[in-house]
């Protein structure tokens, strides 16, 4: 190997790293390694002075490889790559050693932690020696966008994109737009009509020249890469027969929403057995129809609303569904106005009145004499049929916390605030657009705080309740943010794509075709003429499966080559 000059920069991260790891000891141990020209520590490598130091050293020592031992590469790799680039070095000549998340934060024995940090840094040094200069390429950005899901989020995103003059394909599985919001009557906290709000959106979407609304359609396939996707959408032909059509798109926004929790899974509530135990959505139906009655058409005197049905408990979903509390208060108001004489009780765990106007709404709800009863997580109220002598249809037994009493509450109608749940087809959708889901089935954003709209797959965005339970304003905000992200790109017209992908050394490929079927992105093409396989780099997502599987070692994964990983193994075990 040609004579290299490697610079090693160990970050203290304030005390985050330095309080456990002896950074100077790390320096001492790596300085002896071959090719290491300079090794330093600094308070905050990611800070401007820190980056300036790296750039200065690159100039001064003529470094041609850089190792930064600091936080996780998932955190700051882009930062330091930029720093290298600024100093005129190929960004891929950087290697990071993760000595914070995977060392100083998880170990308390300074000696062991320092030894591990030294090993990880040594591995990085030995690996970086084998790095190759890679060039990012820029490709055209197709301005069309595929929006999956015609709910409030999908429509809002579609309108912003279309208003900016871009074509939008809005795909909706059902035969109408509106999603779950279309099932609601009024909205909290201002009790304005969901229908009015929706009608305005729907008419605009349907009439918009730049939006193709594809009802009763499903996305079958999404191939390609950011800016250059092709999608196959199965819809109905005029004669009703299913017909597939292919569209060119540059970006995808997934707005597939949620489904409500199946209340019959909680036996304590007798949903499905007791006729007058209904879900929030069933109540919405009554409210929209303007008549709140029991199954046998009687006007209910006692109405009980049970919160957190399927949410915030051990058995079903640990998370909070976020909208139920305020929706329940909304019901209190709507029921009081529909049935003035009714006594409404609200059986809750905690009252989550976050967000604009909500606390005030909570106060107003208690002023209209809503009885609030607090129960303990996982200590479900139990509903039973009342006796003939009672003046009610059902009795709810609650261990009420604020009074410390176990009470029996009369009820003629019980409303279950069913929580939000990832749709059963979320796995299918995730695979379709190649994004990940968390343990509850919600789609995972690329950064929970700093990038809540993008996903791990470039060009695919998520908005609305398919990412996590959300109310209307949050869904709309996220949807419009996604639209803005896409517009920012289409405005530039071209986009850079990663330089990391797999390559076939055709001099060594024997055409066994083991790899062809392995690639989930059909990025490997077999040339029948030359009887060789080769990788379409733009399609490759660099997983490296083919490189590992190639029996003759003809495929190499750029930036994760055998040699580089061997060096890393030797490094950690040195």
């Amino acid at each position, binding site marked *: 190997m040609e004579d290299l000059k490697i610079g090693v920069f160990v970050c203290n991260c304030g005390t985050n790293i330095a309080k456990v790891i002896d950074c100077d000891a790390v320096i001492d141990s790596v300085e002896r390694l071959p090719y290491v020209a300079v090794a330093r520590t600094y308070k905050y490598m990611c800070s401007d002075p820190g980056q300036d130091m790296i750039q200065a050293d690159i100039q001064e020592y003529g470094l041609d490889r850089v190792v930064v031992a600091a936080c996780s590469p998932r955190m700051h790799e882009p930062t330091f790559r930029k720093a290298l680039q600024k100093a005129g070095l190929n960004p891929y000549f950087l290697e990071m050693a993760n000595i914070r998340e995977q060392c100083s934060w998880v170990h308390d024995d300074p000696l062991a932690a320092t030894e591990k940090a030294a090993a990880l840094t040594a591995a990085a040094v030995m690996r970086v020696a084998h790095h190759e200069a890679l060039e990012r390429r820029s490709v055209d950005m197709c301005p069309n966008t595929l929006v999956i899901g015609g709910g409030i989020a999908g429509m809002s995103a579609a309108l912003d994109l279309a208003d900016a003059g871009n074509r939008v394909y809005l795909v909706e599985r059902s035969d109408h737009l509106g999603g779950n919001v279309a099932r609601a009557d009024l909205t909290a906290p201002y009790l304005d009509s969901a229908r009015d709000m929706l009608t305005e959106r729907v008419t605009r979407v349907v009439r918009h020249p730049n939006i193709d609304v594809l009802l009763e359609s499903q996305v079958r396939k999404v191939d390609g890469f950011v800016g250059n996707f092709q999608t196959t959408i199965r819809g109905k032909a005029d004669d009703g027969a299913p017909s597939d059509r292919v569209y060119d798109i540059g970006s995808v926004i997934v707005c597939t929403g949620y489904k409500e929790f199946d209340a019959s899974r909680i036996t304590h509530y007798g949903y499905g057995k007791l006729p007058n135990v209904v879900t929030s959505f069933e109540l919405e139906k009554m409210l929209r129809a303007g008549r709140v009655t029991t199954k046998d058409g009687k006007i209910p005197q006692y109405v009980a609303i049970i919160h957190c049905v399927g949410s915030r408990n051990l058995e079903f979903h640990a998370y909070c569904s976020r909208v139920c509390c305020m929706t329940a208060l909304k019901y209190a108001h709507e029921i009081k106005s529909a049935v003035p004489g009714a006594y409404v009780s609200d059986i809750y765990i905690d009252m989550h009145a976050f967000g604009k106007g909500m606390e005030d709404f909570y106060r107003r709800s208690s002023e209209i004499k809503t009885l609030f009863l607090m129960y303990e997580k996982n200590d479900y109220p139990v509903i039973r049929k009342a006796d003939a002598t009672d003046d009610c249809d059902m009795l709810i037994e609650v261990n009420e916390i604020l009074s410390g009493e176990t009470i029996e509450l009369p009820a003629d109608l019980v409303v279950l605030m069913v929580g939000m749940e990832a749709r059963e087809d979320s796995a299918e959708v995730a695979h379709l657009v190649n994004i990940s889901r968390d343990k509850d089935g919600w789609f995972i954003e690329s950064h929970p705080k700093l990038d809540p709209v993008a996903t791990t797959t470039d060009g695919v965005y998520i908005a609305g309740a398919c990412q996590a339970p959300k109310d209307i304003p949050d869904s709309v905000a996220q949807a419009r943010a996604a639209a803005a992200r896409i517009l920012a790109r289409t405005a530039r017209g071209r986009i850079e794509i990663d330089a990391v992908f797999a390559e076939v050394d055709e*001099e*060594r*490929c*024997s*055409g*066994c*075709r*083991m*790899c*062809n*079927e*392995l690639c989930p992105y059909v990025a490997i093409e*077999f040339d029948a003429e030359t*009887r060789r396989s080769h990788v379409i780099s733009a399609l490759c997502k660099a997983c490296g499966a083919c490189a*590992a*599987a*190639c*029996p*003759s*070692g*003809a495929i190499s994964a750029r930036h994760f080559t*055998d040699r580089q990983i061997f060096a890393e193994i030797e490094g950690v075990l040195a």
Partner: protein
Amino acid sequence: MPDDKLQIAIYWGAACGGCDVSILDTDAFILDIDKAADILLWPIATDGKYKDIEALADGHLDVTIMSGAVRNSENEHMAHLLRQKSKLFVAYGSCAYMGGIPALANLAPREEIIARAYLNNASLEPGNTTVPRPRTSLNGYDLELPEFYPRVYKLDQVVDVDYYVPGCPPQPGQAQAAITALVMALTGQAEAPPKGSVVGAYERALCDDCTRTKSEEKKVKRFYRPWQIMQDPAVCLMEQGILCAGSATRSGCGVRCPNSGIPCRGCYGPAPGVVDQGAKLLSAVASIIDSKEPDEIDKILLTLPDFTSFANRYSVAASPLQRSHRR
């Protein structure tokens, strides 16, 4: 004896002799060798004595072609001796190159092997517990036998090797080509190949020369031994569920096995740049198993008995682990 004649030795270590036969199989070419060289030692064909070799000056031999692995002290002693006496040292055949079939014994400890061969073996006469020992004294005579090492080595784990000729045995055509190349180099008529290079083989894997058609649809629900299934002679054996090492094996043999309906056994060793032939074959096999269920996968693998001795049939001694580490 005229000086311009090359001085060569052909020797075998732990080997079956097939390699020597492969040289003989070059037919008339043998006579050319004889014209060009004095064969000072070739146990299978000529009458040479160890002491004659020991008597030679160091580097007297132009080239030694040694087949076979190193299993015992004699193999090692001769390897060292011949290396010392020759300018070029060629590891000839899979055993010399990678340990070969004898190195499969590395998967078992020496004691087990001895026991299997001399103590509990159906062909032994009952009650006979004679076991070979380095030294035996019988009615006044001392008998000395080479020491049986705990493991088998490939040649370059014992001596410095200049060139490798893979194959079990090397295909005669390739042997001829290799030897010719060496002679040309030694006689200054051609550029010598770089030290350590594999001669008498190609750069690509066997599939490159295999005429069977290969599709991308490689999905296997079970594996077959060749005799378990009526195979389609025109289609890739792997696609038919017959485990074939071709995709992970260097070409050069002329695809003899697959062409005759037998899956490649990998005797030509891994493709260039590959660390372990077995590991590569492992990935190749794994990528055609048609299942996502651990249990089903295990079931499918039941149809693949003794996978290791297939994956590393010739390359145990060359693999990263080299031998069993059982305690």
